[in-house]
C-alpha cells in the first residue's frame, strides 16, 4: 500500500472538482473492494476522496412511478427496503446473494457498480495483466481460467465482472445517474460497463471526473415472476461461476415480457435482448427456455478450465426461467435450488 492523501467531500460538486483536479485520485465509499486492491498494491491512488457522507442515502419513489436509489445507500439497506422488497424483489434477492453480511453493510450501491474483477492475475502484481498495466499482456489466457469469461471477452482480457446487484439492475433496465464537470447525465446500466476489447483497463464508461449519484429503476418491477439464481463453488460467500436474473410478465402460460441477464460470464452484466425476444409471446416451457439459452450462449467461447460454464449457464438459464414462470423464486437463505 502506498501513502495517500485523504480528503472528504461534503457535496457532489466538491467531489467532482476534487476528482477533476487529480486524475490519480479515487473516490472511496464503503471501500470493500478499493481497500483490498490498495493493500495488494494493485490500486495506487495518490488521494482518496471520501464520498461516504454525501447526502445520497435515500430511496424514494420517482414521478414516473419508479424508484431512485441514492449512490451511497448501503447494499443491506437496499435489499431490505420495503419499496424494493415489494416492487423489485429480484434486486433484493441479487444483493442478498452477494458477499457476506459484513460486506453488504459497508458496500454502497455506487461502489457495487464500480467493483473491479476478481481475476487472480489482476490481483497478483508479479504477473502481467492488461487491466492492471495496459499492454503488459494477459496472464489468464493459458492460465487458471475456471472463473473467467465465456462471453464478450477479447484477446486482451477474459476477466469477469463480479457484481450480483448489477445483474438484477441490468434485467430491470435500470439507469445510472452521474454528475461530472459538464453536468448530469444518465447511462442505461447495460451501457455502463464495457467489454474489454483492447482497452480492458477501462471497466466502464464513467468519465474521469464523473461520480455516480443514483440508480433509477423504471416502474416495472416484475414482482410476481422473477428469480435470481447464483451458482458457486460453495453455498455462500463465493463469486458466481454463473448467475442468472430472470424476470417475466406472464399472461397465463404465455410470456408477455421477458428479461434475462447473466453474471459471472463476462466483463459486464450480460443482458441478451435477442434471447428475450425469443421468449416474447411464446409459451413458458422448457423448450422455449432452452431456445432462449441457446441464443444467449451461441457465441460462447470457453477457455481451458471453464468449458463447463457454457452448459452450466444453459441449465441455469432454463432453471431460473422455470422458477420465474412458476412464481417460485430461488431463496437466498435456503441453498437448495428449487
Amino acid at each position: 500500500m502506498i501513502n495517500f492523501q485523504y480528503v472528504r467531500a461534503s457535496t457532489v460538486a466538491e467531489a467532482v472538482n476534487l476528482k477533476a483536479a487529480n486524475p490519480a485520485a479515487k473516490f472511496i465509499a464503503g471501500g470493500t473492494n478499493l481497500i483490498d486492491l490498495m493493500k495488494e498494491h494493485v490500486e495506487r491512488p495518490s488521494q482518496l476522496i471520501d464520498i461516504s457522507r454525501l447526502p445520497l442515502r435515500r430511496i424514494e419513489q420517482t414521478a414516473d412511478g419508479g424508484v431512485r436509489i441514492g449512490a451511497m445507500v448501503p447494499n443491506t439497506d437496499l435489499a431490505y427496503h420495503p419499496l424494493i422488497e415489494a416492487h423489485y424483489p429480484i434486486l433484493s434477492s441479487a444483493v442478498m446473494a452477494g458477499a457476506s453480511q459484513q460486506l453488504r453493510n459497508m458496500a454502497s450501491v455506487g461502489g457495487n457498480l464500480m467493483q473491479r474483477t476478481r481475476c487472480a492475475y489482476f490481483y497478483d502484481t508479479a504477473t502481467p495483466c492488461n487491466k492492471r498495466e495496459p499492454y503488459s499482456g494477459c496472464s489468464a489466457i493459458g492460465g487458471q481460467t475456471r472463473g473467467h469469461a465465456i462471453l464478450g471477452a477479447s484477446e486482451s482480457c477474459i476477466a469477469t465482472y463480479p457484481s450480483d446487484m448489477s445483474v438484477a439492475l441490468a434485467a430491470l433496465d435500470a439507469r445510472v445517474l452521474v454528475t461530472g464537470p459538464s453536468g448530469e447525465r444518465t447511462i442505461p446500466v447495460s451501457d455502463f460497463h464495457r467489454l474489454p476489447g483492447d482497452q480492458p483497463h477501462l471497466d466502464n464508461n464513467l468519465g474521469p471526473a464523473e461520480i455516480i449519484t443514483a440508480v433509477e429503476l423504471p416502474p416495472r418491477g416484475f414482482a410476481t415472476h422473477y428469480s435470481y439464481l447464483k451458482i458457486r463453488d460453495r453455498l455462500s460467500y463465493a463469486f458466481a461461476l454463473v448467475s442468472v436474473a430472470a424476470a417475466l410478465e406472464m399472461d397465463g402460460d404465455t410470456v408477455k415480457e421477458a428479461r434475462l441477464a447473466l453474471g459471472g460470464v463476462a466483463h459486464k452484466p450480460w443482458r441478451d435482448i435477442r434471447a428475450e425476444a425469443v421468449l416474447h409471446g411464446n409459451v413458458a416451457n422448457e423448450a422455449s427456455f432452452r431456445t432462449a439459452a441457446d441464443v444467449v450462449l451461441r457465441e460462447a467461447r470457453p477457455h481451458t478450465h471453464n468449458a463447463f460454464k457454457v452448459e452450466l449457464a444453459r441449465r441455469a438459464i432454463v432453471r431460473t426461467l422455470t422458477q420465474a414462470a412458476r412464481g417460485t423464486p430461488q431463496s437466498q437463505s435456503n441453498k437448495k435450488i428449487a
Partner: protein
Amino acid sequence: MNAHVGTPASRVDGPAKVTGQAKYAGEFAAEGLAHGFVVEATITKGRIRRIDTVPALKVKGVLDVLTHERRPAMADDDQAWKDDVAPEQGSPFRPLYDDAVRFSGQPVALVLAEDWETARYAATLIDIEYQQEAFSTDLEKQRAHAFVVEKAEQPRGDAAKALASASVRHEGEYFVPTEHHNPMELFASTASWDGNGRLTVYDKTQGVQNVRNYLCGAFRKKHDELRVISPYVGGAFGSGLRPQYQVVLAVAGALALKRSVRVVLTRQQMYGLGHRPASIERISLGARADGTLDAVAHEAIAVTSQFEAFSRNDTGWADLLYKSPAAKSVHRLARLDVSTPSDMRAPGAATGVYALESAMDELAVALKLDPVELRLRCYSDRDQSSNLPYTSKRLRECYSQAADAFGWNRRNGEPRSMRDGSDLVGWGMASGVWEALQMPAAIRIVLSANGHAEISCAASDIGTGTYTIVAQVAADALGLPLENLSVRLGDSSLPQAPVEGGSWMAATTAHAVVHTAREIRGELLKLAKAVANSPLKNADVDDVLLVDGKITSQRDASQSVSIANAMRHGKVDRIEKEEIHHFADDKSHARNTHSAVFAEVKVDEQLGVIRVTRVVSAIAAGRILNTKTGHSQIMGGVVWGIGMALHEETVFDHRFGRIMNANIAEYHVPVNADIHDIKVIFVDEPDELVNPLGIKGLGEIGIVGVAAAIANAVYHATGKRVRDLPITLDKVMAR
C-alpha cells in the same frame, strides 16, 4: 474421583477469550515497539542479483531494512536450524540467509519502521533484480522422478501375485491437491527486547520450547537469554508445529535494532508457509467373492520441497483396519520448487484414508456388497503389519451406532436410486483411524493452604481445550473445585512439554498431572500423619485420595484429615512439586483411535450443486475427558472434512510457480451455509492397556474418513466416481 473428568465442562479460558482478555502473539505490547513488514520473492527459483533498499530507507519512520546482505549473524549449519519437527533429511529454510530464492513467496527482506503502515509502504519501494532459474511446481510432471525417502515398508506376502489372481479387483488412482491450514489468527511474533541481548518472544506456535531451542540454535543464544511465550493460539492445525519464518525475522529485527519488534504476516503471505502436500494415491485391492481381502497395495507420491524431505505415512492405514494376507505399500516423494510441506490435521491419514476408503467403496460396488458389510467382512482385530492386538478397537460399535443413528438400513444401494425433488440423494460411509500417541511431559503443581492450586506446563493450547482438561484432571486428582485451580501454559520457562500435535496432548498432560498430584498427595499425607491422633497414621500414598479438601482413606471415607488442617499443623503454606512423567514403553499392543463416518449428500442433478445435508461420526477414542470440547473437536474435524471433499484446493499457475488463490475469498473453506446436521457419537471404549487413564486423544480422528464418506455419497447419488478432490460441481454435473 471423577467429578470433573468426563463432564461437558465449559472451557476455563472461555471468558478470557470472549471478553478479549486473552492475548495473542501479535497483541503483546512492548516498549519502543518497531514493526516489520515482509517483502516476498516474486520469482519461484533463482538468485537475488541486486536488492535496492535505498528508496525504502529514505522513507520517514523507516528504521532499517534487513536482507541477506544486511542482517544479524545466524548459524550456518543445518543442525542448528533443525527444530523438533524438522524432517530428518534436508536443509531447513533459513530466512534472509543467502541470495537463493527457493519458492515463490519466500521472504527476501524485512522492512523495519516505527509503525506497520510505514513498513508496509516502504516495502513497496524495495527494488529487486533476480536471476531466474527453471523450476517446477507441477506434481504430475515430476511424479516420474519421485523417490523413496524412508526405509520401504516390509511387504507382507506377494501382493502382486495375489492381486493378479484375485477374483474381484479394484485399482484406482486418487488425487488430493495442496491445501493450506488457514488458521483464523495470522502468524505473528512480538520480540520484546529485554536488554543485553535478552529477549522475550511472544509467538504463534504449537510448541514454545521447540521455538526457544530453535531460536537459540539459529542465533547462538543460551536458553536463559530467550523466553518464548504463547498463552493462546487462534488455531494452528499443524502449521505452528515448526517455528515459522516470521519469528526468526522478529528476533533478527530486534537484534538489529536493539529494540522490540513485531512481525505479523498477511493472510496472503501465509500461503508461503507449510501446507498439506498434494499427493497421488494409487490403491489396488484384490478380494474374494465372499468379500474378504487377498491383497492391498497402496502407492503414494507426495510433494516435498527441493531442500527438505517432508514425509508422512499416507500408506499403511489399511493394515490397521482390514485383514489381508498380502500387502505392499510404497511412499514416494516428488520434489517441487515450493516451501516445505508441513503437518496438517491427521497428516498422511486424511489423504491416505480418503483414497483407501474410496477404493473400499468401489470394491463394495464391484462385489455388490453393502459398504458396511464389506468392512465387517474384512475387519481385523490385529494390526496386520505388526501382528499385534489392539489395546482396544471398538470400530464395530462405531459402525453399528453410526449406522443406526443415520438410518443406514433404509439405504437403497443402487446409485441414483434416491431422490428429493430435483436433487439426487446419496448416502456414503467410510472408516477412520489414527494413532493413540503419548509423550513425556512435566507438570508443576503449587498447592496453597487456602485451597488454591496452580498447575503449570509449557504445553500449548491451540484451541483444543488443553487448559480445560488439565484443570479437570487436576481438580479430580487434588479434590478441589475447578474454580480453585489456575492453569498456566505456553511459556518456555514452564516445565517441559512436547509440541502440541499428533493428538497426544490430552493423554500426555493428564498423566503428568496425575503423576505430580501423587507427589502432592504424598507430601500432604506426611503432614496428615503428623496431626495428633491422625486416622491416616498407617496409610500409604496410594491408600488415600484427595476429596473435597480432605486427605481421605480409600477404604474408609470417614478416616480423613482436612488439607488445611494438615498444612496448618505442619506450618506449611504451600506445597510445590514438579515431576516429569514417562509412559511405560509397552510395545505389546497396537494403539489406535477409530471412527465410522456416514454422510448424506443432495446433488442437484442438472446443476451439480452439492449439499452435505447430514453427517454422523462415531468415534472410539478411549476415555473422553470433556464431552463438550471433545464434541467440538470432532465437529471441527467433520467440517474440515467437508471442506476437503468439496472446497479446498491451493491453485498453482505452473507457468509462474505461484499460488493464484492466496486469500480466503478464493481459497474456499466451508461457510455456515455449507454445514448442516452433524451428529457426533462417542462410543464407550474402556481401555486399561493404552495408558492408566485410558486416554487416546481426539485431535486428528475427526477429519479422517470424512472426505471419503462424502465422495462415496456423491457416487451413490450420481453414479459418478470423482477421484480427484475437491469434488466441484463441474465434475458431477450430469452430461
